[in-house]
């Protein structure tokens, strides 16, 4: 069984007491009868910071090997919550001061464009000539990773997007026009990909490479769609 030195225990206990004192200070200085959202975010951040060394000690105690992964994730989440708390407080005191020029849809398009470009570039560079079984496994892994990046990324965008009330807004006429123009651009790419297929089959290429090429064209189509959205949001549709 792993045992810890007395200074480590004392340091952790001191850290927990400091976090408890910080939490009490937030509650006592809330300036009203109830907790505001900024106080909830702040208390959540303090709680995570308090737990970070405990998680490290606990994983060390259970597995016998030190691992800082859990503590690092908790600390990063705590920092994100602190930033959100500060932004929420600033917005409450000065409405409109943290308003973003970019809409949620635009931020989402930037995220999707960056994610598919980065992940699928990595996949095609690494597995263009791989055996079918390996390539399919890597492709499934890439898609799962893409879904995780999308979920975490959109949660992050929603958390930091200000004012938060805009998240409930349905796409308006500008969003719809940009989506339609981008869809038109993507249609040309899909159409080109479709008519390229017979030519690809005629070429003396292995079937695996033809399939990779066909899939790459679909990825490029999606990149054109998302890229067009970002382009039209930035430059306008006039």
């Amino acid at each position: 069984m792993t045992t810890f030195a007395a200074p480590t225990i004392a340091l952790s206990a001191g850290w927990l007491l400091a976090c408890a004192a910080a939490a009490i200070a937030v509650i006592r200085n809330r300036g009203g009868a109830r907790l505001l959202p900024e106080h909830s975010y702040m208390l959540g951040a303090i709680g995570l910071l308090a737990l970070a060394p405990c998680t490290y000690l606990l994983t060390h105690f259970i597995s016998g090997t030190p691992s800082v992964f859990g503590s690092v994730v908790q600390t990063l989440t705590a920092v994100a919550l602190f930033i959100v708390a500060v932004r929420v407080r600033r917005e409450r005191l000065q409405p409109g001061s943290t308003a973003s020029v970019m809409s949620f849809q635009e931020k989402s398009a930037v995220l999707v464009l960056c994610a598919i470009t980065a992940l699928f570039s990595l996949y095609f560079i690494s597995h263009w000539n791989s055996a079918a079984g390996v390539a399919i496994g890597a492709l499934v892994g890439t898609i799962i990773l893409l879904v995780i990046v999308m979920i975490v990324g959109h949660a992050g965008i929603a958390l930091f997007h200000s004012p938060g009330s805009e998240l409930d807004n349905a796409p308006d006429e500008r969003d719809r026009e940009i989506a339609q123009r981008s869809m038109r651009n993507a249609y040309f790419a899909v159409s080109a990909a479709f008519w390229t297929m017979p030519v690809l089959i005629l070429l003396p290429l292995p079937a695996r490479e033809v399939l990779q090429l066909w899939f790459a064209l679909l990825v490029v189509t999606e990149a054109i769609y998302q890229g067009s959205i970002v382009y039209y949001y930035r430059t306008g549709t006039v």
Partner: protein
Amino acid sequence: MAKKKSNVDNRVRELRFRHGEITQQDLANKIGVARQTIIAIEQGKFCPSLESALRMAKAFDTTVDDIFTLAD
């Protein structure tokens, strides 16, 4: 990225300030569009639909051609 030049000029920003410094968010709420759409209209990056232009004219108690004019 170079901004595209609109063929239509507008006085939305000027009229907002003439009408009690109405905010972009308040104007957006009256017309039924996003705040970013008002920003894009003011910057000449987006031409609103006829319906939105009419709603805007109603919000400013004026006519559409007082807000939007063809650029030279």
